[in-house]
């Protein structure tokens, strides 16, 4: 579904991604973790067709980026730490707008079904600006999956969520995974990163330094591996 080969992204003299190789299969949930500045968000923006790669191969669902970005867009949904929703519109209006933009059939039914799925049916006429952070994030998932994309891209989706809201988000993501969507999540939150996914990869200084099956590694071992690969253990030690 997602295939990155030697992906390089450079801003001026700043080399952010230095030859990233990553593969996310159909129905697979892959989490990419890394510290601040590792290049996670840049990588996500390239995969989401928002940035053009400097070099390397990016294939999404068999289509190449950036040439076939128009085709790829119909098959991806993006959940970011920004809601990508209009605060002044109601929940239903937001989803209706995106249903129109994606030119979906049975728009009203789809919008209502999406609102029910994320538990916001009763708040459909309320402006998004009146929602809590957790409710906004649930509506964001409804927006991102309204057109039933094959691939769901999650960019730090847990930012600003309390424990209850995080748990609700976990359930929604688990449901999306069970529905067969391929999911690529980037996060710096290691616990959430490991819980839901099939595979977990570590991005450090613009390169994938480790890619493991999350079912074969315990959270404690993964923390050690992460510290070893990113050098965070050394940093802590040197501070001490």
């Amino acid at each position, binding site marked *: 579904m997602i295939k990155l080969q030697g992906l390089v992204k450079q801003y001026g003299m700043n080399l952010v991604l230095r030859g990233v190789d990553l593969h996310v299969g159909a129905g697979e949930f892959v989490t990419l973790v890394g510290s601040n500045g590792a290049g996670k968000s840049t990588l996500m923006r390239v995969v*989401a*067709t*928002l940035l*053009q790669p400097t070099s390397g191969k990016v294939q999404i669902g068999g289509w190449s980026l950036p040439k076939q970005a*128009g*085709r790829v*867009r*119909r098959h*991806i949904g*993006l959940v*970011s730490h*920004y*809601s*990508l*929703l*209009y*605060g*002044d*519109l109601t929940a239903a*209006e937001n989803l209706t*707008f*995106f249903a*129109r*933009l*994606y*030119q979906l059939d049975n728009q009203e039914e789809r919008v209502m079904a999406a609102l029910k799925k994320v538990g916001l049916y009763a708040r459909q006429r309320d*402006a998004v600006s009146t929602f809590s952070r957790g409710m906004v994030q649930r509506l964001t998932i409804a*927006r991102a999956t309204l057109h039933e994309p094959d691939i769901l891209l999650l960019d730090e989706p847990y930012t600003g969520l309390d424990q209850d809201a995080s748990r609700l988000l976990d359930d929604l993501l688990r449901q999306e995974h069970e529905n067969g969507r391929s999911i690529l999540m980037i996060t710096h939150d290691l616990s959430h990163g490991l819980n839901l996914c099939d595979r977990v990869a570590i991005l450090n200084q613009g390169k994938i330094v480790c890619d493991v099956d999350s079912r074969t590694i315990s959270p404690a071992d993964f923390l050690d591996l992460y510290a070893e690969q990113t050098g965070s253990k050394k940093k802590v030690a040197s501070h001490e």
Partner: protein
Amino acid sequence: MNEQVTNQKKTSESREFITAVFSVVWKDLRIERHTRQTVSVMVMFSVVTVIMFNFALESNLDAARNVSTGLLWATILLAGTLGLNRSMALEQENQTMDALLIAPVPRNAIYLGKVISITLFTLALELILIMLFIIFFNKPMWRPMVLLILVLGTIGYIAAGVIVTSMTIQTRSKEVLLPVLLLPLALPLVLPASMGVAAYMFPQQPVWSEVQSAIFIVIIYDILMLTAGFLTYRFVVES
């Protein structure tokens, strides 16, 4: 057979394009219906400006009447920058521009949708301005040709404004940069447009040959800016 398939594809693409344009317009009008922030800010600014000039030039009513066409366009330009800034800033809040950009719609559909919605807001403002100019300066504004020049001038100004605002909105000094870049760009439009309107400010109507060149320049400016927007908007928003 191949030709039929190509024609069907073209029809479907055109339908998708038009749907995308009007989805953006629908969204902007809905937001305005809920908040009334864009038009109300533009109207407040314009009303204050017109009243201020009316009192400043009260002692010299002839001077007031002579400068009223220039004042009308200056007010539209400055109020227009407020509308442009507000409407494009909406797409920066919660990064909604990203949501538009990952949707499978052509970038120039987003551009055209924005041009239409901001033009509608500016035309609503102009209706109020026309009333004010009739009341304060006793000018015969309610004439079809005056209205036509205002509509054409507004389309050109907003067509240029959406391109420039889309560039400046991502910078830190967007409030300063927009008028600095946009107003000189609007000069080739505003000069003939205000000359065209001024020609209709006398009791006797001008003959067509007196205003045709001004109106043609405005139309050519509109076509140039809309074409530039269509061709370059993709690079503006993706860079």
